[in-house]
């Protein structure tokens, strides 16, 4: 067992640390304040090969492994969880299912768009009445001659109003329950596709979340992803991989908040000495360091298992659960350490606390992760 990163993984981390420091950090507070999509940052992430990095070179990607993607997301999230979310969704929830389940024609058409073509991807599963119980979606899709017709709407779609390629799940045969769900590749230019309400959220202000509406949306027959009825399986498998991304995002948020805490407590003098010299502060920081280290090992373990083609459902759920809860605990404690200053937007830690909360909710709530973990314990 070797706990050292490869030289290439170390370079990915170094590159992303430099990118985050120079490109992302200077605009993070402004992105949060204005809730504007960080378009220039995402364009630059395409330029350096991070967006769609796991897509093989023949389709315009770099052929990186899931660990490299997790490291990139982690580094971004140290400064900007929104940018990390856009990347995690694009790589894990759009490129990945097309790469895994797409036909040669689908891969040749869509993967170059999602890499060298600079088109952002998204994933549409959640509906108003189908959240954790994803099997209860109402969106329908019927085959009519040489095309499908889709009707329904999806909510809370990350990258919703900037994405151009969507992986969408819809019922092709309601009578079959989850076996009646199918997956489709949908472009935002298809007739009947529209973007609905833009969500105003507690955090992740730079991550564009929207409702997506399909009204007699015409989808070419060849855009069925996998086989009819395979959709639920594709959705669940895709979410397994996506959870590694969200775990990495949560890890990055915790690491970023801890770094802020170390910096602040070393400079903040109360009762005649820096507050970092009080044992209470040191013990809290020690627990944070411990949680980050344990969380990192869980994320990297799940990523390596995925890369090796091993089953990783439980490991991804554990990484996501542990890191998201640790991010929430850490950011809450860091705001406390900053006292009144922490509650203002003069410092980034209140934003980190707002951003952390979503990691306990999306791509499977903490409760769902516990269901997944216990379901894989032979109980």
């Amino acid at each position: 067992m070797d706990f050292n990163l490869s030289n290439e993984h170390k370079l990915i981390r170094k590159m992303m640390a430099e990118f985050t420091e120079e490109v992302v950090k200077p605009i993070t507070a402004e992105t949060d304040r204005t809730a504007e999509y960080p378009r220039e940052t995402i364009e630059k992430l395409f330029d350096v090969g991070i967006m769609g990095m796991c897509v093989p070179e023949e389709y315009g990607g770099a052929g990186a492994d899931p660990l490299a993607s997790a490291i990139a997301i982690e580094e971004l999230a140290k400064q900007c969880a929104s940018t990390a979310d856009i990347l995690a969704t694009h790589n894990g929830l759009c490129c990945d299912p097309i790469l895994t389940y797409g036909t040669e024609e689908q891969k040749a058409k869509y993967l170059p768009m999602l890499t060298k073509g600079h088109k952002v991807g998204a994933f549409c599963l959640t509906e108003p009445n189908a959240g954790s119980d994803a099997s209860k979606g109402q969106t329908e899709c019927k085959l009519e001659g040489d095309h499908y017709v889709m009707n329904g709407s999806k909510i809370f779609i990350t990258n919703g109003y900037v994405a151009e390629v969507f992986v969408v799940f819809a019922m092709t045969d309601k009578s079959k329950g989850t076996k009646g769900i199918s997956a489709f590749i949908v472009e935002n230019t298809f007739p009947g596709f529209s973007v609905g309400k833009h969500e105003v959220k507690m955090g992740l202000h730079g991550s564009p979340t929207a409702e997506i509406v399909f009204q007699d949306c015409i989808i070419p027959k060849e855009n069925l992803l996998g086989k009819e009825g395979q959709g639920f399986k594709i959705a669940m498998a895709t979410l397994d991989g996506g959870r590694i991304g969200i775990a990495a995002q949560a890890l990055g948020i915790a690491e970023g908040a801890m770094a802020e805490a170390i910096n602040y407590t070393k400079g903040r003098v109360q009762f005649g000495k820096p507050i970092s010299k009080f044992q209470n502060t040191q013990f809290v920081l020690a627990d944070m360091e411990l949680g980050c280290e344990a969380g990192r090992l869980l994320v990297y373990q799940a990523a390596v298992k995925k890369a090796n083609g091993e089953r990783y459902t439980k490991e991804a759920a554990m990484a996501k659960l542990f890191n998201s809860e640790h991010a929430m605990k850490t950011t809450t404690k860091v705001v406390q350490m900053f006292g009144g200053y922490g509650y203002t937007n003069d410092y980034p830690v209140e934003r980190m606390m707002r951003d952390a909360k979503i990691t306990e909710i999306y791509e499977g709530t903490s409760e769902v992760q516990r269901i997944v973990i216990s379901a894989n314990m032979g109980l």
Partner: protein
Amino acid sequence: MKIIVTVKQVPDTSGRIAVNPDGTLNRASMQTIINPDDLNAIEAALDLKDELGCKVVAITMGPPPAEGMLRELMAMGVDESILVSGREFSGSDTYATSQILAAAIDTYGIDEDDIIMSGRQAIDGDTAQVGPQMAEKLGLPQVSYAGEIKKEGNTLTIKRMLEDGYMTLRVKTPCLVTCIKELNTPRFMNVWDILHTYEKPLKVMDYEALKDHPLMDKSTIGLQGSPTNILTSFTPPLKGAGRILEGSGKETTDELAGILSDKHII
């Protein structure tokens, strides 16, 4: 056509400075970075590569760990690297270094349409001597302080940035150009090149490989042969934090006058 770029690992001056008993920097125990001006030279070369499709080669003289820097440069798009490394070269000053690098570059080969690029100067020594000295030893025309470079055929048109203006020159290849930071913004590494950087060629040239080159004078390499003697290296004492007075009105100037008066400066 190829572009050979000389690069140097320098101490990260934001970290701790370590000095050897002989007064030279103890580079092995210090964090290092790629010399900033050299990154501008690399970027200029990669820009020309993007435009013309030429090969870019990075060359450095340093200890074996300098390979890490060369791999980073190849992760930015540099095609191959040369590491000039040997105990005999250790402690070389600019005179010795330029001689060794010139011999190494000449051994590698310079063609009619080639360009050699260097950063203006390194942040550790601040001499700006190695680039021009290499050009002299190789018998090549040189243009220093390049702030803009255009290539047409075998002619480079270069805007030299000077303190009080600029000068536009035309020079025929092969030639040597030293680059300033205003020339460009260095790119980041990219995932495609990161994943191939350890497959790219890296040639090591040691003393044995260069000792018989006509440019090499064995008596003027390394610490003993270097005409420059370093008496001491030290970290200058830190200045106290400054104070900025905001505003342009009378209130601010009165406040400033008050502070200066309190300190008995006025």
